Protein backbone atom coordinates (compact mmCIF):
# COMPACT_ATOMS: atom_id res chain seq x y z
CA UNK A 1 0.00 0.00 0.00
CA UNK A 2 3.05 2.24 0.43
CA UNK A 3 3.55 2.46 -3.34
CA UNK A 4 -0.13 3.20 -3.85
CA UNK A 5 0.07 6.04 -1.31
CA UNK A 6 3.04 7.56 -3.09
CA UNK A 7 1.27 7.21 -6.44
CA UNK A 8 -1.73 8.99 -4.97
CA UNK A 9 0.40 11.83 -3.66
CA UNK A 10 2.06 12.15 -7.06
CA UNK A 11 -1.36 12.47 -8.74
CA UNK A 12 -2.41 15.17 -6.29
CA UNK A 13 0.77 17.22 -6.71
CA UNK A 14 -0.33 19.41 -9.67
CA UNK A 15 -3.50 20.61 -7.98
CA UNK A 16 -1.70 21.19 -4.69
CA UNK A 17 0.91 23.32 -6.46
CA UNK A 18 -1.68 25.30 -8.43
CA UNK A 19 -3.86 25.97 -5.38
CA UNK A 20 -0.86 26.99 -3.27
CA UNK A 21 0.62 29.29 -5.89
CA UNK A 22 -2.54 30.76 -7.39
CA UNK A 23 -5.02 30.60 -4.53
CA UNK A 24 -3.65 30.26 -1.01
CA UNK A 25 -0.52 32.41 -1.34
CA UNK A 26 -2.08 35.36 -3.22
CA UNK A 27 -5.17 35.45 -1.00
CA UNK A 28 -3.08 35.28 2.17
CA UNK A 29 -0.85 38.10 0.93
CA UNK A 30 -3.87 40.18 -0.04
CA UNK A 31 -5.47 39.70 3.38
CA UNK A 32 -2.23 40.52 5.21
CA UNK A 33 -2.26 43.78 3.25
CA UNK A 34 -5.16 44.91 5.49
CA UNK A 35 -2.71 45.83 8.29
CA UNK A 36 -0.33 47.69 5.95
CA UNK A 37 -0.28 51.46 5.68
CA UNK A 38 -1.55 53.11 2.49
CA UNK A 39 0.90 55.30 0.62
CA UNK A 40 0.09 57.22 -2.53
CA UNK A 41 3.69 56.85 -3.65
CA UNK A 42 4.59 53.24 -2.86
CA UNK A 43 1.00 51.91 -2.83
CA UNK A 44 1.63 50.28 0.55
CA UNK A 45 4.14 50.37 3.42
CA UNK A 46 4.55 47.03 5.18
CA UNK A 47 4.03 47.99 8.81
CA UNK A 48 1.36 46.84 11.22
CA UNK A 49 -1.43 49.38 11.60
CA UNK A 50 -5.09 49.29 12.48
CA UNK A 51 -5.94 52.45 10.58
CA UNK A 52 -7.66 50.69 7.66
CA UNK A 53 -10.12 48.95 9.94
CA UNK A 54 -10.56 52.11 12.00
CA UNK A 55 -11.41 54.02 8.82
CA UNK A 56 -13.72 51.30 7.57
CA UNK A 57 -15.71 51.03 10.77
CA UNK A 58 -15.39 54.69 11.76
CA UNK A 59 -16.58 56.52 8.63
CA UNK A 60 -20.34 56.67 8.24
CA UNK A 61 -19.96 56.33 4.44
CA UNK A 62 -18.37 52.91 4.80
CA UNK A 63 -20.61 51.89 7.69
CA UNK A 64 -23.66 52.52 5.52
CA UNK A 65 -22.24 50.31 2.74
CA UNK A 66 -21.42 47.53 5.21
CA UNK A 67 -24.91 47.70 6.69
CA UNK A 68 -26.52 47.64 3.23
CA UNK A 69 -24.37 44.71 2.10
CA UNK A 70 -25.24 42.66 5.17
CA UNK A 71 -28.93 43.55 4.79
CA UNK A 72 -29.06 42.60 1.10
CA UNK A 73 -27.03 39.43 1.72
CA UNK A 74 -29.43 38.41 4.50
CA UNK A 75 -32.55 39.21 2.47
CA UNK A 76 -31.14 37.36 -0.55
CA UNK A 77 -30.50 34.28 1.59
CA UNK A 78 -34.05 34.44 2.97
CA UNK A 79 -35.48 34.97 -0.53
CA UNK A 80 -33.51 32.06 -1.95
CA UNK A 81 -34.60 29.85 0.93
CA UNK A 82 -38.27 30.80 0.49
CA UNK A 83 -38.18 29.97 -3.22
CA UNK A 84 -35.59 27.20 -3.07
CA UNK A 85 -37.21 25.07 -0.38
CA UNK A 86 -40.48 24.28 -2.17
CA UNK A 87 -38.56 23.72 -5.38
CA UNK A 88 -35.99 21.39 -3.79
CA UNK A 89 -38.72 19.56 -1.87
CA UNK A 90 -40.72 19.05 -5.06
CA UNK A 91 -37.67 17.85 -7.02
CA UNK A 92 -36.66 15.47 -4.23
CA UNK A 93 -40.14 13.92 -3.84
CA UNK A 94 -41.63 13.97 -7.32
CA UNK A 95 -41.93 10.79 -9.33
CA UNK A 96 -42.69 12.73 -12.50
CA UNK A 97 -41.06 11.57 -15.72
CA UNK A 98 -40.08 15.22 -16.23
CA UNK A 99 -37.85 15.24 -13.18
CA UNK A 100 -34.63 15.19 -15.22
CA UNK A 101 -35.82 18.07 -17.39
CA UNK A 102 -36.94 20.05 -14.33
CA UNK A 103 -33.53 19.54 -12.72
CA UNK A 104 -31.88 20.70 -15.93
CA UNK A 105 -34.01 23.86 -15.96
CA UNK A 106 -32.68 24.77 -12.51
CA UNK A 107 -29.09 24.21 -13.57
CA UNK A 108 -29.33 25.76 -17.07
CA UNK A 109 -29.60 29.42 -15.98
CA UNK A 110 -26.60 28.87 -13.70
CA UNK A 111 -24.50 27.94 -16.68
CA UNK A 112 -25.32 31.00 -18.77
CA UNK A 113 -23.23 33.26 -16.54
CA UNK A 114 -23.96 36.25 -14.35
CA UNK A 115 -23.99 38.84 -17.15
CA UNK A 116 -26.63 37.05 -19.20
CA UNK A 117 -29.04 36.75 -16.28
CA UNK A 118 -28.47 40.29 -15.05
CA UNK A 119 -29.13 41.56 -18.55
CA UNK A 120 -32.41 39.62 -18.60
CA UNK A 121 -33.55 41.49 -15.51
CA UNK A 122 -32.57 44.83 -17.01
CA UNK A 123 -34.76 44.06 -20.03
CA UNK A 124 -37.61 43.05 -17.71
CA UNK A 125 -37.39 45.83 -15.13
CA UNK A 126 -35.99 48.83 -17.05
CA UNK A 127 -38.05 52.00 -17.49
CA UNK A 128 -38.84 50.86 -21.06
CA UNK A 129 -38.73 47.23 -20.01
CA UNK A 130 -41.27 44.47 -20.22
CA UNK A 131 -42.88 44.95 -16.82
CA UNK A 132 -43.38 48.67 -17.36
CA UNK A 133 -44.73 48.30 -20.91
CA UNK A 134 -47.16 45.59 -19.83
CA UNK A 135 -48.39 47.71 -16.89
CA UNK A 136 -48.73 50.73 -19.17
CA UNK A 137 -50.46 48.69 -21.85
CA UNK A 138 -52.99 47.58 -19.25
CA UNK A 139 -53.51 51.21 -18.26
CA UNK A 140 -52.44 50.59 -14.66
CA UNK A 141 -49.75 53.29 -14.65
CA UNK A 142 -49.13 56.45 -16.73
CA UNK A 143 -45.45 56.96 -16.03
CA UNK A 144 -42.93 54.10 -15.90
CA UNK A 145 -42.20 52.80 -12.41
CA UNK A 146 -38.64 53.19 -11.23
CA UNK A 147 -37.66 49.62 -10.49
CA UNK A 148 -34.11 49.57 -11.83
CA UNK A 149 -31.52 51.29 -9.62
CA UNK A 150 -33.35 50.37 -6.42
CA UNK A 151 -32.45 47.90 -3.70
CA UNK A 152 -35.45 45.81 -4.72
CA UNK A 153 -34.04 45.37 -8.24
CA UNK A 154 -30.67 44.25 -6.86
CA UNK A 155 -32.44 41.86 -4.51
CA UNK A 156 -34.65 40.31 -7.21
CA UNK A 157 -31.72 39.74 -9.56
CA UNK A 158 -29.50 38.33 -6.81
CA UNK A 159 -32.19 35.91 -5.61
CA UNK A 160 -32.62 34.74 -9.20
CA UNK A 161 -28.91 34.36 -9.86
CA UNK A 162 -28.12 32.57 -6.60
CA UNK A 163 -31.23 30.37 -6.35
CA UNK A 164 -29.51 27.26 -7.80
CA UNK A 165 -26.83 27.49 -5.09
CA UNK A 166 -29.61 27.15 -2.52
CA UNK A 167 -31.49 24.40 -4.36
CA UNK A 168 -28.56 21.94 -4.67
CA UNK A 169 -27.68 21.59 -0.97
CA UNK A 170 -31.39 21.51 -0.07
CA UNK A 171 -32.08 18.88 -2.72
CA UNK A 172 -29.17 16.77 -1.47
CA UNK A 173 -30.43 17.02 2.13
CA UNK A 174 -34.05 16.26 1.21
CA UNK A 175 -33.33 13.47 -1.28
CA UNK A 176 -31.01 11.81 1.22
CA UNK A 177 -33.73 11.47 3.86
CA UNK A 178 -35.11 8.08 4.61
CA UNK A 179 -38.72 8.18 3.30
CA UNK A 180 -39.70 5.70 6.06
CA UNK A 181 -39.22 8.44 8.66
CA UNK A 182 -42.04 10.53 7.19
CA UNK A 183 -44.19 7.43 6.84
CA UNK A 184 -43.48 6.49 10.45
CA UNK A 185 -44.55 9.95 11.63
CA UNK A 186 -47.78 9.59 9.64
CA UNK A 187 -48.44 6.16 11.09
CA UNK A 188 -47.89 7.51 14.59
CA UNK A 189 -50.67 10.01 13.94
CA UNK A 190 -48.79 13.18 12.99
CA UNK A 191 -50.50 15.35 10.40
CA UNK A 192 -48.80 16.72 7.31
CA UNK A 193 -47.84 20.01 8.95
CA UNK A 194 -46.49 18.34 12.07
CA UNK A 195 -44.54 15.74 10.08
CA UNK A 196 -42.99 18.50 8.03
CA UNK A 197 -42.14 20.69 11.02
CA UNK A 198 -40.85 17.92 13.26
CA UNK A 199 -39.29 15.46 10.83
CA UNK A 200 -38.57 16.84 7.35
CA UNK A 201 -37.51 20.34 8.30
CA UNK A 202 -35.07 19.47 11.11
CA UNK A 203 -33.49 16.75 8.96
CA UNK A 204 -32.91 19.20 6.11
CA UNK A 205 -31.11 21.62 8.42
CA UNK A 206 -27.60 20.96 7.04
CA UNK A 207 -28.90 21.77 3.56
CA UNK A 208 -30.56 24.97 4.77
CA UNK A 209 -27.40 26.11 6.51
CA UNK A 210 -25.09 25.15 3.67
CA UNK A 211 -27.28 26.86 1.05
CA UNK A 212 -27.69 29.99 3.17
CA UNK A 213 -23.96 30.17 3.84
CA UNK A 214 -23.20 29.85 0.12
CA UNK A 215 -25.77 32.44 -0.92
CA UNK A 216 -24.76 34.87 1.82
CA UNK A 217 -21.08 34.78 0.86
CA UNK A 218 -21.74 35.00 -2.85
CA UNK A 219 -24.05 37.99 -2.33
CA UNK A 220 -21.57 39.75 -0.08
CA UNK A 221 -18.92 39.45 -2.79
CA UNK A 222 -21.16 40.41 -5.73
CA UNK A 223 -19.97 43.27 -7.94
CA UNK A 224 -21.48 43.03 -11.40
CA UNK A 225 -25.13 42.54 -10.46
CA UNK A 226 -25.31 45.42 -7.91
CA UNK A 227 -23.38 47.66 -10.33
CA UNK A 228 -25.80 47.04 -13.19
CA UNK A 229 -29.07 46.69 -11.26
CA UNK A 230 -28.39 49.23 -8.54
CA UNK A 231 -25.96 51.64 -10.13
CA UNK A 232 -24.40 54.27 -7.91
CA UNK A 233 -27.50 54.39 -5.69
CA UNK A 234 -27.14 50.90 -4.26
CA UNK A 235 -23.45 50.45 -3.59
CA UNK A 236 -22.29 47.25 -1.90
CA UNK A 237 -18.94 46.12 -0.49
CA UNK A 238 -17.97 44.27 -3.68
CA UNK A 239 -18.13 47.50 -5.69
CA UNK A 240 -16.15 49.28 -2.97
CA UNK A 241 -13.36 46.71 -3.33
CA UNK A 242 -13.47 47.09 -7.10
CA UNK A 243 -13.17 50.88 -6.95
CA UNK A 244 -10.50 50.85 -4.26
CA UNK A 245 -8.24 48.58 -6.29
CA UNK A 246 -9.00 49.70 -9.83
CA UNK A 247 -9.31 53.48 -9.49
CA UNK A 248 -8.19 54.67 -6.04
CA UNK A 249 -5.40 52.06 -5.85
CA UNK A 250 -5.81 51.87 -2.07
CA UNK A 251 -4.90 48.21 -1.68
CA UNK A 252 -4.68 48.20 2.14
CA UNK A 253 -8.22 49.56 2.54
CA UNK A 254 -9.54 47.19 -0.13
CA UNK A 255 -7.89 44.36 1.75
CA UNK A 256 -9.57 45.43 5.00
CA UNK A 257 -12.96 45.33 3.24
CA UNK A 258 -12.19 41.85 1.89
CA UNK A 259 -11.02 40.78 5.34
CA UNK A 260 -14.42 41.77 6.69
CA UNK A 261 -16.14 39.64 4.03
CA UNK A 262 -13.97 36.64 4.79
CA UNK A 263 -14.65 37.08 8.51
CA UNK A 264 -18.41 37.00 7.81
CA UNK A 265 -17.98 33.85 5.74
CA UNK A 266 -15.89 32.09 8.37
CA UNK A 267 -18.43 32.95 11.07
CA UNK A 268 -21.19 31.47 8.96
CA UNK A 269 -19.19 28.33 8.18
CA UNK A 270 -18.44 27.92 11.88
CA UNK A 271 -22.14 28.18 12.67
CA UNK A 272 -22.77 25.64 9.92
CA UNK A 273 -20.41 23.07 11.38
CA UNK A 274 -21.45 23.70 15.00
CA UNK A 275 -25.22 23.92 14.66
CA UNK A 276 -25.70 21.79 11.55
CA UNK A 277 -23.76 18.80 12.74
CA UNK A 278 -24.84 18.82 16.37
CA UNK A 279 -28.55 18.46 15.69
CA UNK A 280 -28.17 15.73 13.10
CA UNK A 281 -25.84 13.65 15.21
Amino acid at each position, binding site marked *: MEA*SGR*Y*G*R*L*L*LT*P*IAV*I*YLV*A*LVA*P*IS*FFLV*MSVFRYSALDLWIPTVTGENFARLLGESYHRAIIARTLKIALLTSVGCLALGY*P*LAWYLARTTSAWR*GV*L*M*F*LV*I*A*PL*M*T*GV*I*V*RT*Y*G*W*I*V*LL*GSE*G*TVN*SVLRGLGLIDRPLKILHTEAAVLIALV*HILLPYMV*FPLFAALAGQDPDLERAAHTLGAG*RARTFLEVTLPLSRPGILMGSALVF*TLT*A*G*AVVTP*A*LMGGKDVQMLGQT*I*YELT*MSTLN*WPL*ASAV*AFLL*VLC*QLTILLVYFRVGRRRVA
Partner: protein
Amino acid sequence: MSPDSPVVGPARASGRTGRLALGAVVTAIYVFLLAPVAIIVFSSFNPTEANTFPPTGFSLRWYAKFFESAGFVNAFRFSLWLAIVAAVVATAIGFLTAYGLVRAGRRGQGVVQSLAMLPMMVPHLLISISLLLALLVVPVPDLAALVIGHVVICLPFAIACIVASLEGIDAQLELAALTLGASRLRALWEVVIPLVAPGLLSALLFTFMVSFGDVYIALFLSGPGRTTLPIEIFAYMQWESTPVVAAITSMQILLIIALGLVIERLVGLRKIMRV
Protein backbone atom coordinates in the same frame (compact mmCIF):
# COMPACT_ATOMS: atom_id res chain seq x y z
CA MET B 1 -66.58 8.09 0.56
CA SER B 2 -67.37 5.11 2.75
CA PRO B 3 -68.52 5.92 6.27
CA ASP B 4 -65.87 3.57 7.66
CA SER B 5 -63.08 5.91 6.73
CA PRO B 6 -64.03 9.39 7.85
CA VAL B 7 -60.40 10.31 8.41
CA VAL B 8 -59.11 9.22 5.04
CA GLY B 9 -61.65 11.24 3.03
CA PRO B 10 -60.85 14.79 4.16
CA ALA B 11 -57.16 13.93 4.45
CA ARG B 12 -57.13 12.83 0.83
CA ALA B 13 -59.02 15.95 -0.27
CA SER B 14 -56.67 18.24 1.62
CA GLY B 15 -53.77 16.29 0.11
CA ARG B 16 -55.10 17.06 -3.35
CA THR B 17 -55.46 20.80 -2.71
CA GLY B 18 -52.04 20.73 -1.08
CA ARG B 19 -50.57 19.14 -4.17
CA LEU B 20 -52.31 21.67 -6.41
CA ALA B 21 -51.01 24.56 -4.31
CA LEU B 22 -47.49 23.13 -4.39
CA GLY B 23 -47.77 22.66 -8.15
CA ALA B 24 -48.79 26.30 -8.56
CA VAL B 25 -45.93 27.50 -6.35
CA VAL B 26 -43.37 25.37 -8.17
CA THR B 27 -44.66 26.57 -11.56
CA ALA B 28 -44.40 30.19 -10.41
CA ILE B 29 -40.81 29.59 -9.28
CA TYR B 30 -39.95 28.12 -12.67
CA VAL B 31 -41.47 31.15 -14.41
CA PHE B 32 -39.32 33.39 -12.19
CA LEU B 33 -36.26 31.27 -12.95
CA LEU B 34 -36.70 31.18 -16.72
CA ALA B 35 -38.41 34.50 -17.55
CA PRO B 36 -35.22 36.61 -17.68
CA VAL B 37 -33.56 34.11 -20.00
CA ALA B 38 -36.62 33.78 -22.23
CA ILE B 39 -37.13 37.55 -22.46
CA ILE B 40 -33.58 38.01 -23.78
CA VAL B 41 -34.22 35.64 -26.66
CA PHE B 42 -37.52 37.40 -27.42
CA SER B 43 -36.08 40.90 -27.39
CA SER B 44 -33.12 39.88 -29.58
CA PHE B 45 -35.56 39.55 -32.50
CA ASN B 46 -37.21 42.90 -31.79
CA PRO B 47 -36.98 45.28 -34.75
CA THR B 48 -37.01 48.45 -32.60
CA GLU B 49 -34.57 49.67 -29.99
CA ALA B 50 -37.11 49.79 -27.18
CA ASN B 51 -37.78 46.45 -25.50
CA THR B 52 -41.47 46.50 -26.28
CA PHE B 53 -43.57 43.52 -25.38
CA PRO B 54 -45.28 41.92 -27.20
CA PRO B 55 -42.72 42.37 -30.00
CA THR B 56 -43.79 44.49 -32.95
CA GLY B 57 -42.15 42.30 -35.56
CA PHE B 58 -39.28 40.00 -36.35
CA SER B 59 -35.82 41.16 -37.31
CA LEU B 60 -32.26 39.88 -37.33
CA ARG B 61 -30.73 43.37 -37.39
CA TRP B 62 -29.21 43.06 -33.91
CA TYR B 63 -27.46 39.84 -34.91
CA ALA B 64 -26.10 41.62 -37.99
CA LYS B 65 -24.99 44.49 -35.78
CA PHE B 66 -23.05 42.09 -33.55
CA PHE B 67 -21.06 40.70 -36.45
CA GLU B 68 -20.30 44.25 -37.64
CA SER B 69 -18.90 45.27 -34.25
CA ALA B 70 -15.18 44.54 -34.15
CA GLY B 71 -15.08 44.97 -30.34
CA PHE B 72 -17.68 42.28 -29.71
CA VAL B 73 -16.36 39.87 -32.34
CA ASN B 74 -12.79 40.13 -31.03
CA ALA B 75 -13.99 39.66 -27.46
CA PHE B 76 -15.99 36.63 -28.57
CA ARG B 77 -12.91 35.13 -30.24
CA PHE B 78 -10.75 35.81 -27.19
CA SER B 79 -13.34 34.27 -24.85
CA LEU B 80 -13.49 31.21 -27.07
CA TRP B 81 -9.70 30.83 -27.05
CA LEU B 82 -9.47 31.36 -23.29
CA ALA B 83 -12.30 28.93 -22.54
CA ILE B 84 -10.72 26.20 -24.68
CA VAL B 85 -7.30 26.60 -23.05
CA ALA B 86 -8.76 26.76 -19.52
CA ALA B 87 -11.00 23.75 -20.19
CA VAL B 88 -8.16 21.56 -21.50
CA VAL B 89 -5.77 22.44 -18.67
CA ALA B 90 -8.42 22.15 -15.94
CA THR B 91 -9.64 18.81 -17.31
CA ALA B 92 -6.10 17.40 -17.44
CA ILE B 93 -5.29 18.45 -13.87
CA GLY B 94 -8.81 17.58 -12.77
CA PHE B 95 -8.39 14.05 -14.13
CA LEU B 96 -5.15 13.47 -12.22
CA THR B 97 -6.80 14.79 -9.06
CA ALA B 98 -10.02 12.82 -9.43
CA TYR B 99 -8.10 9.65 -10.27
CA GLY B 100 -5.84 10.21 -7.29
CA LEU B 101 -8.85 10.74 -5.06
CA VAL B 102 -10.91 7.77 -6.19
CA ARG B 103 -8.27 5.12 -6.88
CA ALA B 104 -5.36 5.85 -4.60
CA GLY B 105 -7.76 7.27 -2.03
CA ARG B 106 -7.16 6.70 1.65
CA ARG B 107 -9.16 7.70 4.70
CA GLY B 108 -8.46 11.36 4.07
CA GLN B 109 -10.35 11.38 0.76
CA GLY B 110 -13.25 13.40 2.16
CA VAL B 111 -10.99 16.14 3.44
CA VAL B 112 -8.87 16.26 0.29
CA GLN B 113 -11.98 16.36 -1.88
CA SER B 114 -13.39 19.27 0.15
CA LEU B 115 -10.06 21.07 -0.29
CA ALA B 116 -10.20 20.44 -4.02
CA MET B 117 -13.59 22.23 -4.06
CA LEU B 118 -12.06 25.28 -2.36
CA PRO B 119 -12.36 27.72 -5.29
CA MET B 120 -16.12 27.19 -5.21
CA MET B 121 -16.32 28.29 -1.57
CA VAL B 122 -14.17 31.41 -1.95
CA PRO B 123 -15.81 34.41 -3.64
CA HIS B 124 -14.31 34.67 -7.13
CA LEU B 125 -13.83 38.37 -6.51
CA LEU B 126 -11.27 37.51 -3.83
CA ILE B 127 -9.40 35.03 -6.07
CA SER B 128 -9.25 37.51 -8.90
CA ILE B 129 -8.16 40.52 -6.87
CA SER B 130 -5.47 38.51 -5.09
CA LEU B 131 -4.08 37.38 -8.44
CA LEU B 132 -4.03 41.00 -9.61
CA LEU B 133 -2.10 41.97 -6.49
CA ALA B 134 0.31 39.07 -7.07
CA LEU B 135 0.97 40.49 -10.54
CA LEU B 136 2.15 43.74 -8.93
CA VAL B 137 4.70 41.83 -6.88
CA VAL B 138 5.76 38.91 -9.10
CA PRO B 139 6.56 39.67 -12.74
CA VAL B 140 4.25 37.26 -14.58
CA PRO B 141 2.57 38.06 -17.91
CA ASP B 142 -1.01 39.29 -17.33
CA LEU B 143 -2.33 36.71 -19.76
CA ALA B 144 -0.82 33.88 -17.70
CA ALA B 145 -2.62 35.17 -14.60
CA LEU B 146 -5.92 35.25 -16.49
CA VAL B 147 -5.47 31.67 -17.72
CA ILE B 148 -4.41 30.42 -14.26
CA GLY B 149 -7.36 32.22 -12.66
CA HIS B 150 -9.74 30.51 -15.06
CA VAL B 151 -8.11 27.12 -14.51
CA VAL B 152 -8.53 27.56 -10.74
CA ILE B 153 -12.26 28.38 -10.91
CA CYS B 154 -12.81 25.56 -13.45
CA LEU B 155 -11.03 22.84 -11.45
CA PRO B 156 -13.83 22.04 -8.95
CA PHE B 157 -16.24 21.44 -11.84
CA ALA B 158 -13.75 19.28 -13.74
CA ILE B 159 -13.05 17.20 -10.62
CA ALA B 160 -16.77 16.80 -9.87
CA CYS B 161 -17.46 15.56 -13.43
CA ILE B 162 -14.58 13.09 -13.48
CA VAL B 163 -15.12 11.78 -9.93
CA ALA B 164 -18.78 11.10 -10.86
CA SER B 165 -17.60 9.18 -13.91
CA LEU B 166 -14.75 7.30 -12.19
CA GLU B 167 -17.00 6.12 -9.39
CA GLY B 168 -19.17 4.41 -11.99
CA ILE B 169 -16.40 2.17 -13.36
CA ASP B 170 -15.14 -1.04 -11.85
CA ALA B 171 -11.78 -0.68 -10.07
CA GLN B 172 -11.20 -4.41 -10.71
CA LEU B 173 -10.69 -3.74 -14.42
CA GLU B 174 -7.62 -1.64 -13.77
CA LEU B 175 -6.37 -4.12 -11.20
CA ALA B 176 -6.76 -6.89 -13.78
CA ALA B 177 -4.68 -4.93 -16.29
CA LEU B 178 -1.97 -4.41 -13.67
CA THR B 179 -2.01 -8.10 -12.70
CA LEU B 180 -1.65 -9.06 -16.36
CA GLY B 181 1.58 -7.11 -16.43
CA ALA B 182 0.57 -3.72 -17.75
CA SER B 183 2.49 -0.78 -16.36
CA ARG B 184 0.55 1.84 -14.38
CA LEU B 185 0.83 4.23 -17.30
CA ARG B 186 -0.41 1.66 -19.79
CA ALA B 187 -3.30 0.64 -17.54
CA LEU B 188 -4.20 4.31 -17.25
CA TRP B 189 -4.01 4.96 -20.97
CA GLU B 190 -5.64 1.77 -22.26
CA VAL B 191 -8.16 0.96 -19.54
CA VAL B 192 -9.04 3.91 -17.33
CA ILE B 193 -9.07 6.77 -19.83
CA PRO B 194 -11.29 5.04 -22.43
CA LEU B 195 -13.73 4.12 -19.66
CA VAL B 196 -14.01 7.66 -18.27
CA ALA B 197 -14.07 9.29 -21.71
CA PRO B 198 -17.67 10.53 -21.20
CA GLY B 199 -16.65 12.08 -17.87
CA LEU B 200 -13.63 13.73 -19.47
CA LEU B 201 -15.74 15.12 -22.30
CA SER B 202 -18.35 16.52 -19.94
CA ALA B 203 -15.57 18.01 -17.79
CA LEU B 204 -14.26 19.74 -20.92
CA LEU B 205 -17.68 21.11 -21.81
CA PHE B 206 -18.57 22.10 -18.25
CA THR B 207 -15.32 23.95 -17.64
CA PHE B 208 -15.66 25.59 -21.05
CA MET B 209 -19.01 26.99 -19.92
CA VAL B 210 -17.64 28.13 -16.56
CA SER B 211 -14.76 29.95 -18.22
CA PHE B 212 -16.91 31.40 -21.00
CA GLY B 213 -19.47 32.78 -18.54
CA ASP B 214 -16.99 34.10 -15.99
CA VAL B 215 -17.03 37.80 -15.12
CA TYR B 216 -15.12 38.06 -11.86
CA ILE B 217 -11.72 36.70 -12.88
CA ALA B 218 -11.73 38.64 -16.13
CA LEU B 219 -13.02 41.80 -14.44
CA PHE B 220 -9.66 42.33 -12.79
CA LEU B 221 -7.29 40.39 -15.01
CA SER B 222 -8.28 41.21 -18.58
CA GLY B 223 -6.52 44.12 -20.22
CA PRO B 224 -6.68 46.06 -23.46
CA GLY B 225 -6.85 43.67 -26.41
CA ARG B 226 -7.61 40.80 -24.05
CA THR B 227 -11.19 41.52 -23.11
CA THR B 228 -13.51 38.57 -22.68
CA LEU B 229 -17.06 38.72 -24.02
CA PRO B 230 -18.81 39.11 -20.62
CA ILE B 231 -16.49 42.01 -19.74
CA GLU B 232 -17.08 43.66 -23.12
CA ILE B 233 -20.83 43.33 -22.52
CA PHE B 234 -20.48 44.63 -18.95
CA ALA B 235 -18.55 47.69 -20.11
CA TYR B 236 -21.06 48.31 -22.91
CA MET B 237 -24.06 47.94 -20.61
CA GLN B 238 -22.83 50.56 -18.18
CA TRP B 239 -23.41 53.16 -20.92
CA GLU B 240 -26.21 51.84 -23.08
CA SER B 241 -28.34 48.77 -23.50
CA THR B 242 -29.53 48.07 -27.03
CA PRO B 243 -30.76 44.66 -28.14
CA VAL B 244 -27.27 43.94 -29.55
CA VAL B 245 -26.54 42.60 -26.09
CA ALA B 246 -29.69 40.49 -26.33
CA ALA B 247 -28.49 39.03 -29.64
CA ILE B 248 -25.06 38.16 -28.21
CA THR B 249 -26.42 36.69 -25.00
CA SER B 250 -29.04 34.72 -26.97
CA MET B 251 -26.28 33.05 -28.93
CA GLN B 252 -24.48 32.35 -25.70
CA ILE B 253 -27.64 30.84 -24.16
CA LEU B 254 -28.09 28.63 -27.21
CA LEU B 255 -24.48 27.45 -27.01
CA ILE B 256 -24.73 26.75 -23.28
CA ILE B 257 -28.01 24.85 -23.53
CA ALA B 258 -26.62 22.71 -26.33
CA LEU B 259 -23.48 21.90 -24.33
CA GLY B 260 -25.57 21.29 -21.20
CA LEU B 261 -27.76 18.78 -23.00
CA VAL B 262 -24.68 16.92 -24.27
CA ILE B 263 -23.33 16.68 -20.71
CA GLU B 264 -26.73 15.50 -19.48
CA ARG B 265 -26.60 12.70 -22.06
CA LEU B 266 -23.00 11.77 -21.22
CA VAL B 267 -22.88 11.70 -17.43
CA GLY B 268 -26.03 13.31 -16.05
CA LEU B 269 -25.90 16.83 -14.61
CA ARG B 270 -27.47 15.76 -11.35
CA LYS B 271 -24.67 13.37 -10.51
CA ILE B 272 -22.13 16.13 -11.05
CA MET B 273 -23.92 18.80 -9.08
CA ARG B 274 -24.39 16.60 -6.04
CA VAL B 275 -20.67 16.01 -5.49
